[in-house]
């Protein structure tokens, strides 16, 4: 088991955002989390790498407990990649600079090695020709791909994707999903919060449906789409498929 999430609770004031979420992920698996907005999906991701501390519950990355008070959180985070909805590329660095800074500063790589690595990752997401561009000079889709390259450059054990395409114009979504699909096929362990059903159908090993802070149902895509146990799940999937599903593969 690569990732184990056990009984996560999180509350903002009176708002109970997560009420006991547990699941696990094996190496190489791709899981997609779906659900209505505000059901804590993003919060869950942030609790996993402790960007947001959970009120209750534990998380393990392989043998290490992330939620332990004595955990070396920086070392752990260096093993988990995070792709944000709003990209969050470092505004003062070029694409190359962004991809390179993790290996350089966090892993202490030498500059030449880090640069070479960064160029390889940019190549992998199809943007090696934009290495010297600043974030403001790139389109949304390009920025998000750089952000994925930035995560990849750290050789993570797991990558968390927080609605990676929600902030993109429709015609740019495809290029990002393409990268994500190829990553999944190469065996990267990915936990993705998204509405893109086409993606889920293509590469997800499991779909997790969340509502009101709990996991309502989880299962293989085929099963979830055709034969969901809970009526609510089927309802939601149909609605989403109408809006997002077939158009973006």
């Amino acid at each position, binding site marked *: 088991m690569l990732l184990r999430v056990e009984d996560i609770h999180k509350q903002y004031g009176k708002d109970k955002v997560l009420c006991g979420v547990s699941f696990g992920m094996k190496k190489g698996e791709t899981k997609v989390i779906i659900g209505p907005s505000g059901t804590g999906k993003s919060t869950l991701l942030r609790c996993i790498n402790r*960007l947001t501390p959970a009120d209750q519950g534990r998380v393990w990355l392989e043998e290490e407990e992330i939620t332990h008070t004595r955990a070396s959180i920086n070392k752990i*985070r260096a*093993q988990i990649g*995070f792709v944000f909805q709003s990209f*969050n590329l*470092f*505004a*003062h660095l070029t694409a190359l600079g962004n991809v390179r800074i993790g290996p350089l500063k966090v892993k202490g790589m030498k500059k030449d090695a880090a640069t070479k690595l960064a160029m390889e990752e940019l190549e992998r997401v199809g943007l090696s020709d934009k290495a010297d561009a*600043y974030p403001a*000079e790139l389109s949304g889709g390009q920025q998000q791909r750089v952000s994925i390259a930035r995560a990849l450059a750290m050789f993570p054990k797991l990558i968390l994707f927080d609605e990676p395409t929600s902030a993109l114009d429709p015609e740019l979504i495809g290029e990002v999903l393409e990268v994500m699909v190829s990553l999944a096929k190469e065996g990267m362990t990915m936990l993705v919060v998204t509405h893109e059903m086409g993606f889920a159908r293509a590469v997800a090993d499991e779909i997790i449906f969340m509502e009101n802070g709990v996991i309502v149902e989880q299962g293989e895509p085929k099963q979830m789409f055709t034969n969901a146990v809970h009526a609510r799940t089927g309802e939601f999937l149909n609605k989403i498929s109408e809006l997002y599903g077939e158009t973006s593969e």
Partner: protein
Amino acid sequence: MAGSSLAVPSQLSEQETLIQNIARLAPFIPSLLRASLINIQLLIGLIALGYVFGTLTALLQVYGGKILGTVARIYEWIFRSVPALVLLFLFYYGPPRFGIGISGFAAAMFALGFRSSAYQSQIFRGAIQSIPSGQMLAARSMGMSRIQAIFSIILPQAFRLSIPGWTNEFSSVIKDTTLAYAVGFNEVLRTARIVYDTHYDLAMSVLIFVALIFMVLTLAGNALMGGVERRFRIPGLQVPGHEKTRQSSRTSSDSWGLRLRNFWR
């Protein structure tokens, strides 16, 4: 105090006096220019001091936690609320009270330097706070420690975002160096004073000359900061929503809007 009571020598006709006046000013020009070099030295010293302490104060306020943050805030409040002249007196007459000798230059440099640090702290703090929170999040999510994130991600951006504010500060403190006059320090205004204390009818000309020196210095300073801004410019990295226009680089404050207004108080 001299000047106002000596009407007689200045009742010469304006036409005649103007050219003669300027001619009589000529021998004093070298010493005036030399004195203004002292102002420039003071300027450099106090800006450097202000930069170091200003950055420190800003960082303490944003990242320092309750105690250090409050200390920093109080420091800033004091050095912004007490008039520069009072500060000059305190730094000039204070140390001797405790048995430490201090030169006029050092007193002026410390007084005006710490004062500048309070304003620079505000500029820098505003810059830091205008950086989207996602930048810090992204840095932390890849395993950078807080300190690493601050130095590698936040500061480089804050530095660039502060440049317009610094241009402002620069042109102000150039002029504030004349306040050192009040503690008897021999900078350009005092030199000018010495000239017209004995040549009453040169007062106007000397003072206009000094005024012109400062206008030139201010223009030079603005040009310098413009160069700095261009050298470090990064596309897309500006105060959100406000592009620098040609106008604003001279009139200094128009383009900053609400955010700056709030933290300039």
